[in-house]
């Protein structure tokens, strides 16, 4: 049986871009807005664009946070994209302090302003990998990916960081911890390298 992938639909972000990329890859995927339905999928993608607090509130209001928690506890591979990566962290300092899903021991902090550094970090930036992993197999070190974010993930455990980029400092770009994987950039908008990363999530992990 083919792996079925749920794209979590909680009212934040351009899910269709993720869906289009999975269709292009030939993967079987569905947008899922009913928390109870999540159990029927082997893998989960948590996308997201927008504000952290709004996103957590929507996850809680819909009960999606508990459904995700159950799938995480069961060891299902989960991929967080952009805001989805940040939601996996303990807390965010975006507009106050807000609790996240708490799966990764990390804090979401503003990118430190510096002269000539435009915020948000937007555009194509190269990613260096800290180690080999099936999740980044076939992607050359230094490949450019498309980023749009004003906040970054600061991990307590450096071994959670699988890839970094440089923007006013070294920022976490790819995470990997147990069944969890995440990208701060948008793989669905990062052409060949991005499709490869999504394909690796579908096939290799």
């Amino acid at each position, binding site marked *: 049986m083919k792996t079925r992938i749920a794209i979590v639909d909680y009212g934040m972000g351009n899910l*269709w871009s993720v869906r289009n990329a999975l269709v292009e890859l030939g993967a079987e995927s569905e947008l899922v807005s009913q928390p109870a339905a999540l159990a029927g999928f082997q893998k989960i993608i948590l996308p997201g664009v927008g504000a952290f607090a709004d996103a957590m509130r929507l996850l809680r209001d819909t009960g999606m946070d508990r459904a995700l928690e159950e799938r995480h506890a069961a060891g299902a591979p989960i991929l967080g994209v952009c805001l989805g990566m940040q939601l996996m962290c303990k807390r965010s300092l975006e507009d106050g302090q807000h609790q996240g899903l708490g799966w990764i021991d990390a804090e979401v902090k503003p990118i430190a302003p510096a002269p000539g550094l*435009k915020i948000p970090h*937007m*555009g194509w930036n190269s990613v260096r990998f800290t180690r080999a992993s099936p999740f980044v197999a076939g992607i050359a070190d230094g*490949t450019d990916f*498309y980023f749009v974010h004003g906040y970054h993930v600061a991990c307590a455990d450096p071994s959670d960081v699988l890839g970094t980029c440089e923007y006013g400092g070294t920022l976490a770009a790819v995470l990997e911890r147990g069944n969890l994987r995440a990208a701060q950039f948008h793989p669905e908008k990062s*052409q060949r390298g991005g*499709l490869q990363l999504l394909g690796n999530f579908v096939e290799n992990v």
Partner: protein
Amino acid sequence: MLKKRLIAVLILRDGAVVQSVRFKHTNSIHYDPVHAIECFNKWAVDEIVILNVSREAGSRAGFAEVVKRISQKCFVPLSVGGWITDQDYARSLLNAGADKLVVNTLLADDPALMGALARRFGRQCMVASMDVQNGQAVVDRGRRPTGVAPVEWAKRAVGLGAGEIFFNSIDHDGARKGYDLETLRAVCAALDVPVIAFGGVFKWDHMLEGIRAGADAVAAANIFHYTEHATMKAKRHLAEAGVAVRSEGQRA
């Protein structure tokens, strides 16, 4: 390192790609926009902008359909604009697969809606397109001068929630003499958001001039339709001049 972006622009009228010369769109380029996108994907373009320049508001639904077809094959950021006059239509374009909304006349006619869109979808989603002529910003597809100087207009757009400026000059549009560098330079210097230069590219050196004037991204339309592997050639030219660009795609 963050790269300078190369952006391909598709000007659409009634679903067909047209050539724009000083905002007149008489020459239809007879090919399917989806085919154009597939070429741009192969040629490593960094971003795509699609503008609906039809003078009929009735073109909106058809344009959203084209966006939907294009987005299925577009794996780079996709910005779309034209006739965004209400929140429902903005939402329908995003649901059709667009990543960013390009607004122009809205900045003059409904600044409150501009603010509402920026709050709902985020500033990163809002691209303010500005057309300049005779030292002022012009809206409504080049027909209505605002009486406001370009730098002031751009600052106002950012104040209303624009995350990016898409800069065009009516007299340079399709005129093959390069960007309006003087105005571009002033706009870039006055803002802390990225500026996309557009309008007038006839040779790759024009793009280099745009970057040197301070643009974060350089865009062109017509030249990409008539040159094979155009975006790769443009990137090679920029890279040889020392500009950091993303290198990917098939070799030209």
